């Protein structure tokens, strides 16, 4: 087509030029030889050779709009895009590429991509050009919405302007609303293996302009070309989500199995140790409580008392281990945070020289009452304080804070130290049971602390930078520290408490 046009143009130009020159040469100069046939032929050939390129270009410029123009340009851009998309696996990235290319190169007013979401069982706009995110992110179409049904049955691009011609007014109105919601004048279904996986929604630049049949045919081709890519990206997305869920479940499972292993160990251990301790202590008590005690000298009595006392101490250790592995503590009373902080610092100072360590304690005196097991909280402060002491080494600063945070409605405990900080690579393992960097450490301190905090529905996190120390932040929601409601459950509870206080001597 283009070739014929160019030749036509060339002949026209040549003819015009020839007649002008002819009249000039023959009439003005009387050069009759100019009219001879071979001169005409040479002239024509020379002209054609010299002018072919420029005329070709001129024809292209003049007629590109009619024959191949816009459509051709879009074709190039979109075909290139379709090829590029094959390598894109991320659904969001893919969506952005598609809508932005339509917006910037095809010059539409709006372009949006709607995709089927398996989890929610609906269609959602995942990416848009020319529509504000706060608007398009809200667009969700149920699977039985008329517009979705229409796309599924019609499978071809649907134009808003055609709706009134094709459908009864009520249905047309319904669909027109959805077109307006999507700010589109044309909706192109994306279908892969007979499944409607989404749609490409385009808004023309102005209301008077609509898409032409050629454009629509091409958009439709484009949609079927990118359909498999989109389907793959959806699958990748689903896989990724499933994988994340799996990981989450796995982590929880590991934590709980580790815990129950320790729990089992502790329960078994306590039983196995307490029986021999009972025998040792029992036999000593039989002698100690004999009616005719006068037969022993003081030293023997002293030894027997020591045996009884030390067996009790050993039993307390296993009992303590048990208490932290068991899900619930027996006691439930207001936690005296200030006393606990003071006791903890005092207790540690018996064993470790804190001379060159500055300990700053700050406990808000107006803390709202928080109910729980005080010994569990002693354990929290002891673990965190011991860790901090270990971290600062010979000299440094340790800060212990407890305060109420109004916005979170939670009690916040902070223990910070001026130690060397925690290396990045340890951060992910720091709460794992038996993870320790100290040869004499058990690796249970932070693990047990975390378990207790979680038992009170709280959160615990550690912030640390190299050479800037570390800070442990615990938040305990007040809702988890409420007194026991009056009722039958408390009777049983008090019974146990009573037992708990008497049964252990």
């Amino acid at each position: 087509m283009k070739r014929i046009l160019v030749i036509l143009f060339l002949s026209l130009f040549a003819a015009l030029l020839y007649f002008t020159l002819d009249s000039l040469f023959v009439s003005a100069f009387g050069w009759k030889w100019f009219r001879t046939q071979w001169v005409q032929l040479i002239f024509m050939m020379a002209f054609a050779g010299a002018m072919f390129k420029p005329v070709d270009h001129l024809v292209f410029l003049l007629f590109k709009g009619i024959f191949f123009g816009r459509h051709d340009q879009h074709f190039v851009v979109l075909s290139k895009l379709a090829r590029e998309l094959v390598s894109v696996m991320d659904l969001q990235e893919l969506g952005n590429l598609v809508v932005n290319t339509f917006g910037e190169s095809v010059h539409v007013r709006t372009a949006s991509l709607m995709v089927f979401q398996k989890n929610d069982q609906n269609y959602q706009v995942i990416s848009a050009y020319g529509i504000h995110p706060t608007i398009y992110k809200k667009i969700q179409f149920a699977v039985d919405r008329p517009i979705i049904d229409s796309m599924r049955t019609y499978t071809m691009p649907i134009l808003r302007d055609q709706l009134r011609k094709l459908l009864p007014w009520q249905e047309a109105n319904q669909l027109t609303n959805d077109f307006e919601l999507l700010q589109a004048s044309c909706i192109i279904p994306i279908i892969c293996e007979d499944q409607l996986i989404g749609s490409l929604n385009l808004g023309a630049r102005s209301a008077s302009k609509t898409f032409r049949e050629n454009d629509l045919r091409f958009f439709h081709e484009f949609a079927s070309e990118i359909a498999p890519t989109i389907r793959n990206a959806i699958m990748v997305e689903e896989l990724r989500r499933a994988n994340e869920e799996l990981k989450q479940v796995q982590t929880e499972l590991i934590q709980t199995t580790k815990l129950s292993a320790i729990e089992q160990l502790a329960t078994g251990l306590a039983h196995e140790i307490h029986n021999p301790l009972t025998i040792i202590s029992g036999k000593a008590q039989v002698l100690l409580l004999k009616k005719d005690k006068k037969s022993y000298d003081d030293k023997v009595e002293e030894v027997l008392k020591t045996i009884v006392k030390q067996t009790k101490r050993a039993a307390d250790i296993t009992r303590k281990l048990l208490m932290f592995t068991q899900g619930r503590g027996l006691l439930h009373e207001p936690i005296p945070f200030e006393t606990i902080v003071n006791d903890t610092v005092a207790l540690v100072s018996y064993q470790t020289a804190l001379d060159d360590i500055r300990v700053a304690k700050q406990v808000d005196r107006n803390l709202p009452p928080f109910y729980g097991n005080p010994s569990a909280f002693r354990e929290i402060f002891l673990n965190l304080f011991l860790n901090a002491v270990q971290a600062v080494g010979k000299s440094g600063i340790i800060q212990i804070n407890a305060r109420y945070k109004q916005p979170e409605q939670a009690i916040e405990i902070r223990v910070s130290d001026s130690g060397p900080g925690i290396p990045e690579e340890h951060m992910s393992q720091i709460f794992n049971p038996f993870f320790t960097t100290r040869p004499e450490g058990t690796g249970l301190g932070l693990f047990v602390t975390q378990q207790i905090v979680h038992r009170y529905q709280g959160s615990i996190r550690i912030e640390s930078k190299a050479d800037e120390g570390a800070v442990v932040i615990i938040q305990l929601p007040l809702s988890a520290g409420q007194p026991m409601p009056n009722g039958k459950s408390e009777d049983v509870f008090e019974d146990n408490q009573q037992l708990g206080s008497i049964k252990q001597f």
Partner: protein
Amino acid sequence: MVKLLVVDDESEICEFLRSFFEERDYTVHVAHSGKQALEELKKINPQIVLLDIKMPDMDGVQALKEIKLQHPRVKVIMVTAIETRDKIEECLRLGADNYITKPLSLEYLETDVREKIESISKAK
């Protein structure tokens, strides 16, 4: 004379409990499993049973159920190294008269036994 049945699979524990209570004028009988305890119970008809939980041949919880069913007037004091709250609650629900954890204070155990005896004679 008050008759006491000590049930524990550790014979050493039974032995020191026997010598302790015999010195205080109790008649002490011993069993090493839940099954044995039920047999002894029929024969000697004690007022009080000191019952361990972890035992071969019917554990203490099962034995407690049977004792309370067959001999509702017998007082049962659990004496065990298990101190999980679930177990404590379960035994109290099944009618245990007290739950004492090992290692035990003999003084406290004796006080408790004496209290139970008193409550029996009052009921009469």
